[in-house]
C-alpha cells in the first residue's frame, strides 16, 4: 500500500517491478523443488507412460507395441492377479488389525499411571527397527525349525504353524511383524485420546453411561478423524509394501543374495508377492521394461486415488493456510 504521491516519485513501473521481484524471489526459493519435481517426477512419469506402450528390453532400441504390454500384464503374466489379491489381503486384514491394535495400545498407554514413560518407549521402539533388520529378526523368531516362537508354542502344546514357509501363514506372519511395529499409530492415537474434552466424559458419567457407551458415544466421535487418517495412510503403506515381504520370502526360501542371483519373488507359492515387487521382477529380472511400466502405472493410480482422500479440505492433511 503506497500513497499515490509517493508512487509519482518512483519510476512509473514501480508496482510491476515489485511484483516481478516478488515472483522471482518465490521462484528462487522454490527452485530446488521445481528442478526436483521436473527431473525426478514429471519427466519419469511421462516416460513411464511412454514406455508402457513400447517394447523395450534395455539392449535393442525401444519399438512401438501398442497395448501389447497391457494385455500381457492383465492376461498372461502369472504374477499380476496373485499380487493384487495379496495386496488386497494386506489392505483389508492387516490395516484393520493394525488400526484396532494401535487404538488398543493407545488407550492402554493413556490408562497406565505408573512408569508411563518406560512403557511408552518400550511400545514405540519396534517401530524404529529398520525394515530389513525387523524382517531378519522375525524370519529367525518364526522359523519353523529352531525359532523361539515355535519352540515355546510346542512346549505349551499348541500346533506350531510354518509361518514364512507356509503359503497360508506367510501373510499372517507379516501381519504379526507389522503389529509389532505399531508405535506410530500408538503415538497419534494417544495424542487424540488425550485431546478428548474431559467434560464430555463427566457428563456421560452423570448420565450413568457404561464404559462401552462412553467409548461409543464420547471417545469414538472425537477420534474418528484420526482413525480415518490412520486407515488411509495404512492403506497407502500396505499397497506400497515392498521390502518386508521381499526379504521374508528370500530368507525363507534360502536363496543367497548377490549380483545376478535369480530368485522367484513371492516365496512360498506367490503368497508374499506385492505389486511393487512386480515392477522389480518385470524390469530387472525379465528385462521387460514396458510391462514393468504398466504395473508401475497401476500402482500409481491406486496410490493417487487414496492420496486424494487425504487431500480433502476437511479432515485431510492440509491445514488451511494463513
Amino acid at each position, binding site marked *: 500500500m503506497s500513497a499515490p504521491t509517493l508512487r509519482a516519485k518512483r519510476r512509473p513501473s514501480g508496482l510491476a517491478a515489485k511484483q516481478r521481484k516478488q515472483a522471482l524471489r518465490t521462484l528462487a526459493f522454490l527452485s530446488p523443488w521445481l528442478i526436483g519435481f521436473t527431473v525426478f517426477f514429471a519427466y519419469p512419469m511421462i516416460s513411464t507412460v511412454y514406455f508402457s506402450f513400447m517394447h523395450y528390453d534395455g539392449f535393442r532400441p525401444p519399438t512401438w507395441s501398442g497395448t501389447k504390454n497391457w494385455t500381457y500384464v492383465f492376461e498372461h503374466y502369472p504374477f499380476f492377479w496373485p499380487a493384487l489379491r495379496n495386496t488386497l489381503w494386506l489392505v483389508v486384514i492387516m490395516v484393520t488389525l493394525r488400526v484396532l491394535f494401535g487404538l488398543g495400545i493407545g488407550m492402554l498407554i493413556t490408562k497406565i499411571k505408573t512408569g508411563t514413560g518406560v512403557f511408552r518407549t518400550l511400545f514405540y521402539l519396534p517401530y524404529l527397527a529398520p525394515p530389513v533388520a525387523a524382517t531378519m529378526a522375525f524370519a529367525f523368531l518364526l522359523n519353523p525349525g529352531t525359532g523361539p516362537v515355535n519352540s515355546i508354542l510346542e512346549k505349551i502344546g499348541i500346533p506350531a504353524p510354518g509361518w514364512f514357509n507356509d503359503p497360508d501363514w506367510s501373510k499372517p506372519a507379516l501381519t504379526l511383524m507389522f503389529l509389532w511395529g505399531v508405535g506410530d499409530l500408538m503415538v497419534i492415537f494417544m495424542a487424540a485420546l488425550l485431546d478428548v474434552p474431559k467434560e464430555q466424559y463427566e457428563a456421560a458419567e452423570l448420565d450413568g453411561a457404561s464404559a462401552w457407551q462412553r467409548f461409543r458415544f464420547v471417545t469414538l466421535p472425537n477420534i474418528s478423524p484420526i482413525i480415518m487418517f490412520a486407515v488411509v495412510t495404512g492403506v497407502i503403506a500396505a499397497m506400497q509394501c*515392498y*521390502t518386508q515381504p521381499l526379504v521374508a520370502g528370500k530368507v525363507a526360501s534360502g536363496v543367497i543374495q548377490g549380483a545376478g542371483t535369480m530368485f522367484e519373488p513371492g516365496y512360498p507359492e506367490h503368497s508374499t508377492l506385492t505389486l511393487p515387487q512386480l515392477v522389480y521382477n518385470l524390469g530387472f529380472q525379465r528385462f521387460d521394461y514396458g510391462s514393468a511400466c504398466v504395473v508401475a502405472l497401476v500402482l500409481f493410480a491406486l496410490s493417487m486415488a487414496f492420496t486424494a482422500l487425504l487431500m480433502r479440505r476437511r479432515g485431510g492433511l492440509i491445514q488451511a493456510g494463513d
Partner: protein
Amino acid sequence: MAQDTAQGTARGTAQVLQRPGESKAPSSPAERTARRKALLEWIAVHSLGVAAALFFTLPFVFVFLTSLMSDSQALSRDLIPHTWEWANYRKVFDTPGFLTWWRNTLIYAGLGTVLTVVSSVPVAYALAKFRFRGRNLALMLVISMMMLPPQVVVIPMYLFWAKQLDLSGTLWPMIIPLAFGDAFSIFLLRQFLMTIPNEYVDAAKVDGCGDLRTLLKIVLPMAKPGIAAVALFQFFAAWNDYFGPQIYASENPGAWTLSYALESFKGAHHTDWNLTMAATVLVMAPVILVFFFAQKAFVEGVTLTGVKG
C-alpha cells in the same frame, strides 16, 4: 518434561491408592468399594501393560540372546546361550566388506541428510510464508510426490542413471536427488514453519532484512526442532533404504549399504542364525541409540527455542 510425567505418575498412583482428602481408614462402605474398584482397575491395566511390553520387547531379547550363542547352539532350540560368545560380533566386523558397507551407509545417510535439509528448508519456507498463485497446487504436488512409491518411476530413473550417466554400482543415484528437495521433508518443515507467527517475519522485514536474511537469522533458529526432526527422519530413511541399493548398487558389493547387505549374512553363513542376528543387532542398534540421543535434543530444542505465539 520427564519431571512432569514423574509428578503426574506419582499423583496418579496416589490418587488410585488413596483418594485425596483422606489419609486414614475409609469412612463409608461406598468409598471403600470405589477405592477397591480403582485398585482393581490399576492392577488390570498394568497387567495388560506388562503383557504388551513383553510382546514388544521379547523379539529384541531373543535376537540379542541368539547373537551371543555358539555356532552349535544356534542350531538348537535353546533360548538362552550356554556360553556368551561376544566373539560373534568380532566375526561380523571381520566379514569381508562389512566396514565398507558401514562407511557407505554413513555416507548415504549423512550426506543425504545434509543435502535434504539444505534444499528443503527454502522450499518449505516459501510454501509456508510466501503468498503466490498456485501455492496450494504446489503443496498438493508435494504431498502427491510424498505418497508415491519409488517403484512407480524407477524404470525411467534407472535408465537415466545407469544407461545415460553410467552411475549404477555407486551411491550417487540415491544421493543426488536429495539435493533437490525431498517431498516428505518439505511437507514436514512446512507444517512446522506454519506454527511460527508471521509477526516475526514481518518485524524482520520492517527492520530491513531481506528474505534470505530473515530465513537465516530469524526463522531458522526458531525452526531448529523441526529441522532436527526432518534430519532424523531422513537419516533413518537412508539407513533403512533397501530398494535404492537393490536397484543401483546390487551389482557392486563395494557400494552396498548395511540394510541391503544384511541378508547376505544368512547366505554366507547358511544356517548360522547367531552371526546373522549379531549383524541384525548392529543394524538396529545405531537407529535406536540415535533415537535416545536425539530425544533429548528434541526436548531441549523445544524448550530452548519454543515458539511462543
